[in-house]
């Protein structure tokens, strides 16, 4: 039964939405005929739509609360479907084979445009997994992650521009520089945590961008650096299409490498120390963990991945300027980690695919693209604040 109370609530919601959308949905100025059009029909649609949707919304919230209660009462059983798939071998193997086939066939089935988008998504997967070390595992909220991305990108761009250094020698250099910058920027923020850390890292991100923008002699300022070499393959020059496919497979390789490394780190002595640090800093230290070293390791390792992806980013676009390294980029990577599920590798992968591919494929809805994108993010955070796939801890079996 729908109660009167609920109808009243929904009515208020629809009134509020009509008021909110009034300027954009109802009023339209027609500059040619110099009149104002009043599209009252739109207002009615918004009103009825939000009235009905508010019922759905409330129903889903109720269902979610009921689900939480149920999870509390019977703890033993219900693991999520996705966890079961990841754990059991007979699901796991076909899944991996299927994914491999799709990944290999992708550039040959789809157009170059699709392949290029996918390469970008793969880059964000690696960035997300890198930031996941800092934010998801060690619990250090880093809002300036893009700084390390810029370090990697500019190291390849400058080395290539001045010395003609190739992609393959620049890749490890970008990684090492990322690592070093991670330690350099990590030192001053060691004492900070939570909000303070976030603000300071945000500052660092902006500093790096501003330096790149204004230090013309070093970075060529806002005009950037163009004509950077694409990655080569033992001196073979590729056509544009072949280069795109090559880069795609290169990214697939890097993604697999990253997954293996992050997975191993997560279940190691170091990874456990990160999680302990996230859970309780005081207790963590009292148990004999060196806080300074653990934090620096997290920062440096996270930055390493950003440095590597930076190099690849430049190799893909063949042009950079500081505009690619704004705060929005950091926010995007952070959203990938939070939306996907902090500390969970599969979560970050799905998060990156959604957040990068969705805006691309929503282009069909042109005007409403960003609106839908924003709405999806809000809905995700309301109904699954722990992320799409929450982290599972490794279990051990013992024989008595």
């Amino acid at each position, binding site marked *: 039964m729908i109660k009167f109370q609920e109808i009243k609530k929904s009515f208020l919601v629809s009134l509020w939405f009509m008021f909110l959308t009034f300027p954009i949905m109802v009023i339209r100025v027609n500059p040619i005929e110099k009149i104002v059009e009043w599209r009252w029909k739109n207002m009615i649609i918004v009103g009825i739509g939000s009235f009905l949707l508010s019922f759905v919304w409330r129903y889903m919230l109720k269902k979610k609360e009921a689900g939480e209660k149920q999870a509390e009462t019977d703890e033993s059983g219900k693991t999520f479907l996705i966890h079961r798939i990841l754990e059991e071998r007979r699901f796991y193997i076909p899944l991996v084979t299927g994914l491999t086939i799709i990944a290999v066939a992708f550039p040959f089935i789809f157009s170059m445009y699709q392949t290029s988008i996918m390469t970008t998504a793969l880059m964000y997967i690696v960035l997300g997994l890198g930031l996941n070390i800092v934010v998801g595992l060690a619990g250090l909220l880093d809002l300036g992650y893009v700084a390390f991305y810029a370090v990697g990108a500019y190291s390849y761009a400058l080395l290539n521009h001045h010395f003609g250094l190739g992609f393959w020698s620049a890749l490890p250099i970008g990684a090492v520089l990322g690592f070093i910058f991670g330690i350099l920027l990590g030192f001053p923020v060691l004492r900070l945590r939570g909000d303070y850390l976030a603000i300071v890292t945000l500052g660092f991100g902006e500093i790096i961008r501003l330096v790149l923008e204004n230090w013309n002699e070093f970075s060529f300022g806002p005009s950037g650096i163009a004509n950077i070499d694409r990655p080569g393959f033992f001196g073979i020059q590729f056509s544009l299409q072949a280069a795109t496919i090559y880069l795609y497979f290169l990214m697939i390789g890097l993604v697999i490498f990253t997954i293996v490394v992050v997975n191993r780190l997560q279940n*190691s002595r170091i990874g456990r120390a990160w*999680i302990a640090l996230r859970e309780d800093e005081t*207790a963590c230290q009292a*148990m004999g963990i060196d806080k300074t070293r653990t934090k620096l390791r997290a920062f440096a390792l996270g930055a390493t991945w950003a440095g590597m992806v930076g190099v690849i980013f430049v190799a893909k676009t063949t042009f950079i300027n500081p505009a690619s390294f704004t705060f929005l980029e950091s926010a995007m990577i952070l959203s990938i980690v939070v939306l996907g599920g902090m500390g969970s590798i599969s979560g970050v992968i799905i998060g990156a695919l959604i957040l990068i591919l969705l805006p691309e494929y929503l282009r069909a809805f042109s005007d409403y693209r960003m609106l839908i994108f924003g709405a999806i993010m809000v809905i995700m955070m309301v109904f699954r604040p722990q992320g799409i796939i929450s982290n599972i801890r490794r279990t051990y079996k013992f024989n008595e």
Partner: protein
Amino acid sequence: MNRIMNTILEVKNLTMDFGGLRALDHLDLNVVEGEITAIIGPNGAGKTTFFNCITGIYNPNEGEILSSPPGKKRKKINGLKPNHVTKKGIARTFQNIRLFSNMTVLENVMIGRHCRTSSGILGAILRGRSTIKEEKDVVDFSYNILKKTGISHLVNEFAKNLPYGAQRRLEIARAMATEPFLLLLDEPAAGMNPRETRELDELITRLRDEDNISILMIEHDMKLVMSLSDRIFVVDYGRKIAQGTPCDIINNPIVIKAYLGEDFDA
């Protein structure tokens, strides 16, 4: 019992000020090897501050803390960082339980092994033979500790889902994993029911007798303190007001006054 009286922790003249407030006032204390020593005193007497000074969370304004692990040289430990104090063999638990709540029980104990193991980033990534062996040793060692503390059936549970008594035990297990010679317990029986307290009594005695660990504990449960401890220190307003065997303390008029107020006729 035929034990040589070796002092393993010596605190001299310890003073700690917070702004104008003197939390610890020239406190002297010593712990003897193989003994269970208790610190008692009214709320706010400075007991937990004392623990925090020993474990390096606070740096005392004055005084010395000397630790002499059995068979090793005596060393000053004040001013060290908490993780170095733990590495030297002094482990602690917390009054308000501070477990790593989103980690499993086993992982909580494995964290305690951190300072006794050494594999680094490269070891973790390459996962060589020595890393795998070290990891296996850590798991086995931790599991044995869980068995000893009686919570081995909960290995894969999240720490936050444990019942209260088990959480207290897990704190002790986690501290034990660092292989201490001295264990500091901050109100281990707080919030426990009589049966759990009895089991705790048993556990602490077992740790002392079987693992040769000396224990320094803060506790309000007088029954537990009297049955367990070999010696008791009474602290009030940051000062030591009495020390001695449980028998001495229970009849000490100063202690009774501190606990029950001026006008009490003993």
